[in-house]
Structure formats: C-alpha cells, structure tokens
C-alpha cells in the first residue's frame, strides 16, 4: 500500500470532505423516519424494523422487504428483491477495498457500511486519505442517522410526512450527480456514465427492480475492457 507515503490531508480539505459526508448522511437520515413508519405500517414489529436497519443496512433493499411483505408478497420474493438490490454493494466493494486497505475487524466493519453514499463520497475524492475519510465519515454518519431515524419513525410514525414533499428524493439524486460530476471530465468515465444511463433506462421497464442498475455496471466492463486507444507500434 502507498498509504504510508501519502501526505496528510490539509485542514481545508478535511473539512470539505467531512462536510460532504455529513450532509449526505443527514439527507439520508430523513428517509429513515419514512422507512421506520412504513415498516411498522406494513406489519413488522419495531424490533424487526430496527434489525433491518442495523443488519441489512441498505435503504433500497429495506424498502423492498417491507414493500413486498406489506403487499402480501411471499417471504422468498421479499428476500430475492432485497438481495438483487444489494448486488451493487458487492460491486462497490471491489473498488472501495482498494483505497481502504483494511483487514480484520475493520474490513468487516467497512463491508457493512459499503453502500451508495459512502462509495459515492469516497470515490469522488482524488487523494487516498480523502477517499478513506469520505468513505468512513459518510458510512458511519448514514449508519447512525439512519438507525436513529428508523427508531423514531417506527415509534412515533412519520411525523414529517412523505420525504418527497421536501424534494429529498431529488436531493439524493443531485448529491450522487454532484459527486460524479468532477470525474466526468475523464473521457472513459463520461462514456461509462452515458452508457450506464442508457442501459438502466432501457432495462427498467422489462426487468425487476435492482437488476437495471446492476446491468448498468456492464458499462464499466465495456469501456474498461476495450483495447487501448493508443495505436499499436508498427511492427
């Protein structure tokens, strides 16, 4: 690992990265209230609701579990949809494991908080120390906020109302877009993003939730595996 050779992060950069992580964490936390309330309304107990946030800890998958069960779907369908939505976390881990350089207990912990938000903030940073700081601050902030808000929602119901009223769904998409933005100056990354959007949108009407985003991952394979653009040296 090159970690030891890297310069420590200037205070200004630290603040910037921490602030990004905290804001993403806070915006996500608000959704926890809505999850907690929805889960109890779907017939799960407060304890089951909390265990989903503590153990499953992946927003999309959790909403899928309570959504399928609440609609009278089978447990198998609930677990299958949740798992499909969780595949992308495993793919994120291929990338985050590279800059985290973690082992043992820290690796087990890092795996647990490997989600959209921590990956987005971590990979948006240019320097190794900033990547690690962004990942951990975001992952741990989202975990704490999400779990506290889940409990609040499960106990007192959805006092805030639908988070969409406040545009919080758009805030999440905008945050991911803002984190991706600087990387799109790179031609390969831009091509990957355009291809991924096309794949996800084409697949959405015909495939179950979760699969279109995983399929969009193929854009990275297509762009990454393509032969180098440099002309081959003349024989």
């Amino acid at each position, binding site marked *: 690992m090159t970690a030891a050779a890297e310069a420590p992060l200037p205070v200004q950069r630290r603040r910037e990265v921490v602030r990004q992580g905290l804001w993403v964490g806070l915006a996500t936390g608000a959704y926890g209230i809505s999850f907690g309330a929805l889960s109890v309304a779907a017939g799960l107990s407060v304890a089951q609701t909390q265990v989903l946030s503590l153990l499953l800890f992946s927003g999309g998958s959790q909403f899928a579990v309570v959504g399928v069960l609440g609609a009278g779907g089978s447990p198998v369908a609930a677990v299958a949809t949740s798992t499909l939505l969780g595949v992308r976390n495993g793919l994120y881990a291929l990338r985050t494991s590279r800059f985290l350089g973690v082992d043992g207990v820290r690796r087990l912990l890092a795996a647990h908080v490997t989600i959209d938000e921590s990956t987005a903030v971590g990979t948006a940073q240019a320097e190794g120390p900033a990547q690690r700081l962004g990942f951990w601050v975001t992952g741990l902030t989202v975990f704490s906020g999400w779990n506290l808000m889940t409990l609040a929602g499960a106990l007192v119901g959805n006092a805030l109302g639908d988070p969409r009223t406040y545009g919080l769904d*758009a*805030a999440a998409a*905008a945050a991911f877009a803002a984190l991706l933005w600087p990387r799109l100056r790179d031609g390969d990354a831009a091509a*990957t993003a355009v291809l*991924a*959007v096309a794949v996800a949108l084409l697949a959405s009407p015909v495939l179950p939730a979760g699969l279109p985003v995983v399929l*969009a991952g193929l854009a990275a394979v297509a762009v990454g595996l393509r032969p180098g653009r440099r002309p081959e040296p003349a024989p």
Partner: protein
Amino acid sequence: MTWATVLAAGVLAYALKLAGYVVPASWVEGERRSRVVTLLPVALLSGLVAVQTLVGDGGGLVLDARLVALGAAVVLLVLRANFLVVVAGAALVAGLLRAAGGG
C-alpha cells in the same frame, strides 16, 4: 416467518458486501480489469441516478419534478456552485414544483 425473512435478507446483504472485499486479488489485477473496477462505481451510480430520476413505481419511464430538479442540479454544477447549494437547490426545485401541483 417475518423474522426469518428479516434475518435472511440481512445476512445475504452483508454476504454480498463482504464478498467484494474478499475476492482474490488476481481477479481484479491487470491494467484493463483495474480500469473496470475503477469505472464500476461510475457506472452503478450513473445508472442509479437515472433510475431515481426517470423510472416510476411500475418500472416505466416517468417525466416529472425529479427530472426538472436534476436539470437544476446540473445547471448549478456547470456554474460551479458548491455541493450543498447543488443538493439543496435540487430539493427546493422538486419541492416547489410539487407544491404547485407539477408532479
């Protein structure tokens, strides 16, 4: 039965996350594979933003306040607005449009 569902979903989700940390290094080594791994979050997050912005509950494409809000975010990004302004601006646009009955 609900407990079994909750626990099974939780264990499988964690297993998937951990799997990415324990794959043999040789699977993801080499110049091109390394490039794929670096591009993976870009692809997945771009796909996610597209789905969050344009896909409706039934899986069909829906044009509503979400797309206008993302458009506002992109304009703010082009203007080099700071992160929080971009995120809050998109939320404000979506919230106002919905309050005005614009989906």
